[in-house]
């Protein structure tokens, strides 16, 4: 899904947000260096809290993608798991698009293509993971920029709907 489809009128603000994230993570060491000399580069300041929150959400989403990718390889529920996996891949793509980090740090940022091997979960465990993910996202809303908060809330809603969707599929088999 394209950024500009998220919220009308916000496309123009997204680059500004990204610029802020870039500035917060990448530019501050340079600013410190200018103020206090090269030695100050040794301990860059921590990133803003919302950057950490976004990174956390990306990491959890990456783990969910990996879990579904591992679970959706076969069996009668594979088509259902594939549908949910597709949702999670969209979630991860949207979340990842909100965070641009400098190359030196980028290697630690999960991407949709670098999901890795997930832990194989039962359907019941997947349901629990979905509910936990939904609750966690809602609990993280405070302090986020409005657009990111809306994305978190929407993803939280989507992940909550996966619970009855999985349950119904499981009962129908």
């Amino acid at each position, binding site marked *: *899904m394209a950024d500009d*489809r*998220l*919220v*009308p*009128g*916000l496309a123009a603000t997204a680059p500004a947000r990204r610029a802020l994230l870039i500035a917060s993570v990448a530019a501050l060491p340079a600013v410190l260096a200018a103020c206090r000399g090269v030695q100050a580069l040794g301990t860059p300041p921590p990133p803003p809290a919302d950057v950490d929150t976004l990174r956390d959400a990306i990491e959890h989403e990456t783990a969910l993608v990996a879990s579904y990718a591992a679970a959706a390889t076969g069996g009668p529920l594979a088509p259902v798991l594939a*549908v*949910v996996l*597709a*949702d999670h891949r*969209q*979630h991860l793509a*949207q979340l990842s698009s909100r965070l641009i980090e400098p190359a030196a740090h980028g290697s630690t940022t999960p991407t949709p293509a670098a999901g890795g091997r997930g832990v194989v979960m039962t359907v019941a465990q997947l349901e629990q993971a979905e509910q936990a993910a*939904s609750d966690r996202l*809602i609990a993280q*809303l*405070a302090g986020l920029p*409005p*657009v990111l*908060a*809306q*994305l*978190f*809330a*929407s*993803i*939280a*809603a*989507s992940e*909550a*709907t*996966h619970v*009855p*969707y999985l349950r*119904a599929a499981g009962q129908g088999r």
Partner: protein
Amino acid sequence: MTSVPGSSPRGPADLTGASLLADASRAAGTPQPVITVLQSALAAEEAASYGYGVVGAQLPQGSAEQAAATTDWVAHMRARDRLSTLITARGATPVPAAVAYRLPLPVRTPAAARSLAATLEDRVAQAYLALVALPDRSLRSFGAKQVRAAALRAQAWRGSVQAFPGLPGKSDALGDP
């Protein structure tokens, strides 16, 4: 006739009321005053309350689906009351519901009724997502939980899932009877 929720009271002679499709589509996105956002959510809840009356009438009498429609209608009535309280607490007057609403699709079959229910929930989710953009922590949390509740109801009626409930452009496929 299409009226804009939150801008003026709706008279009893307004037989079409607010467009269900127009009400919530403007809710998410640009920053709006708290009262405007709350009034938009209220309008969506009022429309949903009306719409579920239509939904219930088209579902088999005494069926589990009709019972579910009643349960969901009650949820919307409670949410409407909560929003009215929030608006009143901020010194504003809740905009009353229209007498009737123009439906986004003809509803003459149970399948159409299910589609309408899912559409109503999509619009409610959109309206509540605007609350999530507000800085107030309690309203933001309330809005997010209401988006989730609406998405769960929509999923139950539709039988499928959406990647981004409440975000514009995600309910266009609805309305197939």
